[in-house]
């Protein structure tokens, strides 16, 4: 793995080009959380009553926060990277400079994380405007740390898909058959307690489930030792996904 500080150069390249897309992506990043929080939080929240003594929104926000980060990082590393690789041939000119293929791919994952953080921040702002606050200021900081881990994990997983994608349509399999269903099996919208045992086991191995558990604990300040395993699971999965994602992308870029 030939990684260097040049990851940062690739990140900056994305930042410079982002200037032109700031407004549309900000609007998208704002509307999406509003949609979730208003429809599910207020609309459905009215029927489900209190969750652990608090309104449904307090249950919903920590989960939606992580899924927003994960989805944004995924989309960036799927569609964004694919366009740069195939249509703009950006990677071809990058690897002819001292920037290595690994630097370039890692720089794009870092960019996906950054985009995820923007989504997460906007989501948090919307939640706070609706009166949903994390338990303390350190909790807010800790949530940002969680977002970074989730961003790297989903960005890396998306890179694996991108490295294998023959065309844009291929991404539909991943977004429609993996990412979207995952939202409903990871305890974002409702607790998993009532699932049959096999489904509970299945959801435990989805990458979003531990992230949502941790996020919810940090948000409410109620911790348990099980969270350590959730965290370790994320870290291990992340290291594996990153390594495979970068390796496969390198194989595709260098012939």
């Amino acid at each position: 793995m030939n990684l260097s500080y040049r990851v940062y150069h690739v990140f900056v390249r994305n930042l410079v080009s982002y200037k032109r897309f700031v407004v549309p992506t900000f609007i998208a990043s704002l509307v999406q959380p509003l949609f979730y929080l208003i429809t599910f939080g207020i609309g459905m929240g009215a029927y489900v009553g209190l969750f652990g003594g608090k309104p449904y929104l307090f249950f919903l926000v920590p989960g939606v926060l992580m899924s927003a980060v994960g989805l944004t990082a995924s989309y960036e590393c799927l569609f964004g990277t694919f366009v740069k690789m195939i249509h703009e041939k950006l990677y071809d000119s990058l690897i002819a400079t001292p920037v290595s293929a690994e630097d370039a791919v890692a720089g794009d994952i870092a960019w996906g994380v950054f985009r995820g953080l923007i989504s997460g921040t906007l989501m948090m702002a919307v939640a706070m405007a609706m009166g949903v606050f994390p338990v303390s200021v350190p909790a807010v900081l800790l949530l940002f740390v969680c977002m970074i881990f989730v961003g790297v994990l989903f960005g890396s997983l998306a890179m694996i898909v991108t490295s294998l994608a023959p065309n844009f349509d291929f991404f539909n399999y991943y977004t429609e058959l993996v990412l979207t269903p995952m939202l409903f099996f990871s305890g974002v919208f409702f607790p998993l307690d009532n699932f049959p045992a096999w489904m509970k086991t299945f959801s435990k191995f989805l990458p979003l489930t531990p992230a949502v558990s941790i996020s919810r604990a940090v948000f409410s300040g109620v911790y348990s030792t099980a969270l350590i395993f959730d965290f370790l699971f994320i870290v291990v999965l992340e290291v594996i996904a990153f390594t495979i994602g970068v390796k496969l992308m390198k194989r595709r870029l260098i012939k």
Partner: protein
Amino acid sequence: MSSIITAKDLTKRYGKFTAVDGISFEIQEGECFGFLGPNGAGKTSTIRMIHCVSPVTAGTLTVKGLPCSIDNRTIKKTTGVIPQEITLDIDLTVRENLMVFSRFFDIPRREAKTRVEELIKFVELEAKRDSKIDQLSTGMKRRLLIARALINQPTLIIADEPTTGLDPQARHLIWQRLRQLKSQGVTLILTTQYMEEAQQLCDRIVVMYQGKILKEGTPRTLIDEEIGKDVVEIRISQDQDEKLIGSLAGFSCGHERVGDTLFFYCRDGHDIRKKLVELDLPNTVHRPATLEDVFLKLTGRSLIE
């Protein structure tokens, strides 16, 4: 002059397909070296190995004494690449393209700013400094690719078909710039399908075909050795061949029938010219031999003596 690039039995395979088949060559410092050949001859595969974006399958390849490999950042640092495809960053302006690229070489910002302004002037894009890439013509894009390749002040420049799809004005401007760079002592490697381009720019060329080097030499010696000095093209129906070849037999010219034309390749065209006037044939062209004749002879058709 010392050699800057040395290739020995260089081979590139993609799966079962052999793109470059054990070629050997040396490129001297400060010269312009051309790879000529039809599509799929292995030119691009060869130069991609030289600038370290494609791994060497077998054989050895060194640049400035360093072995070429994917992770050789040292070679990449002092090499400028003008790619065949337009790989500009379409999200950025002309100036931003160069500024962002300067980062990849760790050029300090202040220094980069000066270089970018100089390069924009060098490729005559001052008026387009803040335009986006889709507002540029193909010629402008190619010029910007040259500027981009120079941002790191390379001592080795690799140009992969740098004038494909350009109008004559743009092509001549690019040739001038490339010659200017060469006069500054830069080593230039060029691939091209345009024989005129090779004749204009290259000190030495190799003709590649099916992954192998067929011939190597200066454009002049290749023409002299392979073709001679003069070419006579006679558009005439095939049933006249025998008679015509018979009447020109005394001039020791090679001949070849291609489609509707009978070609004569001559060491010295002086006498045959007189004979042609005597024969008074319509549709006859008499012209000096060019690299294109060499190219066609080596890669396309075989000369029948």
